[in-house]
């Protein structure tokens, strides 16, 4: 068990003029036993960051600590970590049992009997004891996934590293494995880094999220903190599904004028905006309401497409007054009858709206929350959402 500390870590690929910065000056403290998810779009540097923790890449600058030990100069074999790869990377020439015992043979002094016992025990835990004599080629995707996990667990390492381990599974299996990994992590209590580009996975699995974009750290926080208190427009847009709607506008005399509507800013908003003029308004689809009657700060929209999801519907609407024909999404109750082409009034209450500096993207105004909710943001919810989809 160990904590992990990243201290001003930078990674550049290539050299000289055409170097690409994959990870840019990232500092991070991960506590012992924590489950941290690195999330970001592809190319955000999340995998590179993890590979530097693994020792598969060497950082260009900065230090990596596992526990109290600086591991910059150590190869992966000396870091006491286990890793699950996106493609599982099972050794094709070895049976499942050999795959699982390989690491023990390589890194421990255990006797053959002890190794066998450990492997069998782990295989039972993972429900793959009947597969021990098969080769990876004979297994289904889900079975391979379990073997890959089992191979990591059997080593009883200080740190688990998981690089998009579920991305090759079908949707149903993915949900099941998500739960299982959560359960295993909390049972074993091993510090775990988990890389994904899927924000649902990120929200449901991590104690904390590390949101990355273009190699830069965007935000570190609990899933709910990232959701309700996004540090910037990128995080606000990346976390949450469907994404937050953004409207760029100009603030003049306490009113935000966007293409298609105007929004009167509240007192608190005005204070937060200060003397900025280029401001982006952000509101999540579920915070909008669609009504037939006009409302304060509402504006007239025409319904383009309705996607019924069951309990809710996603309604794609377009401002009647807008000069362009881009739509934004509104989430409404699944029972609300809405038909395409209908004209309605869209409204997002001032309490639920975020404001961002259009130039820097940084959040200048956060939505309001109840005190209880506010307190909950900083507390990792112990697998509270594990079962939910």
């Amino acid at each position, binding site marked *: 068990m160990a904590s992990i500390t990243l201290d001003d870590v930078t990674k550049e690929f290539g050299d000289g003029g055409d170097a690409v910065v994959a990870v840019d000056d990232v500092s991070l403290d991960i506590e012992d036993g924590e489950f941290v998810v690195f999330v970001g779009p592809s190319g955000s540097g999340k995998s590179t960051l993890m590979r530097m923790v693994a020792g598969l890449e060497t950082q260009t600058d900065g230090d990596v600590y596992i526990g109290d030990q600086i591991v910059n*100069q*150590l*190869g992966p*074999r*000396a870091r006491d970590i286990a890793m699950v790869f996106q493609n599982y990377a099972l050794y094709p020439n070895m049976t499942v049992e050999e795959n699982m015992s390989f690491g023990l043979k390589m890194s421990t002094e255990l006797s053959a009997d002890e190794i066998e016992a450990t492997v069998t025990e782990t295989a039972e835990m993972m429900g793959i004891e009947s597969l021990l004599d098969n080769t990876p*080629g004979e297994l289904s995707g889900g079975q391979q996934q379990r073997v890959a996990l089992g191979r990591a667990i059997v080593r009883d390492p200080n740190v688990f590293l998981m690089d998009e381990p579920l991305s090759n599974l079908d949707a149903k299996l993915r949900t099941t494995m998500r739960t299982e990994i959560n359960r295993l992590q909390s049972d074993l209590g091993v510090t775990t880094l988990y890389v994904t580009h899927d924000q649902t996975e990120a929200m449901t699995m991590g104690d904390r999220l590390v949101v990355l974009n273009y190699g830069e750290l965007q935000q570190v926080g609990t899933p709910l903190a990232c959701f309700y208190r996004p540090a910037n427009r990128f995080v606000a847009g990346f976390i949450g599904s469907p994404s937050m709607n953004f409207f760029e506008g100009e603030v003049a005399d306490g009113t935000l004028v966007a293409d298609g509507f105007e929004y009167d800013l509240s007192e608190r908003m005005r204070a937060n905006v200060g003397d900025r003029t280029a401001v982006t308004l952000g509101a999540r689809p579920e915070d909008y309401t669609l009504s037939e009657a006009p409302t304060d700060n509402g504006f007239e929209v025409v319904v383009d497409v309705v996607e019924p999801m069951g309990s809710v519907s996603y309604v794609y609407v377009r401002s009647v007054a807008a000069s362009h024909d881009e739509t934004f999404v509104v989430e409404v109750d699944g029972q609300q009858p809405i038909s395409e082409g209908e004209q309605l009034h869209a409204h997002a209450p001032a309490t639920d709206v975020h404001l961002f500096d259009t130039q820097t993207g940084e959040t200048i105004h956060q939505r309001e929350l109840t005190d209880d909710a506010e307190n909950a943001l900083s507390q990792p919810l112990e697998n509270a959402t594990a079962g939910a989809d």
Partner: protein
Amino acid sequence: MSTQTQTETTTTSETGLARLRALWNDYLPYWFVAPMVLVMVLITFFPGAYDLYLSVIEEPTFDVFAAEFVGLSNYATAFGRGGALHSFIITVTVVVSALALESVLGFGLAALVAGVESERLQSFYRVLFIVPMAVAPVSLATIGRIMLNSEIGVIPYLIEATTPFAAPAFLSEIPLLTVVLLDTWNWTPFMFIIFYAGLSSVPDTLIEASKVDGAPLWRRYLHVIIPYMKPVVFVATLIRMIDLFRTFGVVYGLTQGGPGTATQLVSINIYEQMFINNSPGVAAAIAVVYLVFVVAIANIVIAKVGFEGVWD
């Protein structure tokens, strides 16, 4: 090469053996390529430099360094009287046609054999189809000549006995085609074996997936299997191409470049310049131009096909 210098061992047990082991693993890529580079330097630079030098001096004597510099006159002879250009054209013709035949046949056979269900039968084909490569060039040429002989050869005899067609005089009427066909017989195994090994490495899951999609056989190959095998297909074809460019033994034994100069490959031309005309300078001049030519072709092929389609 990437400059990975992290140590693989913990610093606690720095015994001599461990240090040695660390040194081995830390610089593994260097140890891995060093012997190859050494051999390559030996077998490319010296002969290359020697040929280059020979090509610009007068007829060599025992003391080659006392020879007189003659500029490009050997090159002029090579491309004038030496018929180098003609032999380039002949060679390219043979390379293109034989390569096309051998690639298609080799891949077709590999795919056919890979699909045979009986493991014993598959083994049998695997061995049988490789054997032609093992026939010594001299045997192939000598026995090929007699088998193709229009008067006493068994192949014209069989053609005339079993078909209504008159057998062509293989070596004098269609010498180039004969050379290509014989090379195809001889070297399709090369393509077959590499393609076959490449096919063996295609993951079953990939094939299964395309089967479930209901894709017809040819589409499965075109869109799933061949793209996956691309590196292997590309490399086998490239190497065979390079080898075809220097084909010598069988063709020389079969036709000696004739009739006339109808099958005079560059390798045969170089041989004649060197060992018949006793003009090593002219031979070297042809070799030098030829090397540049083949390097250029290889570069084009790699640039056009290789690094775009295979290696990014």
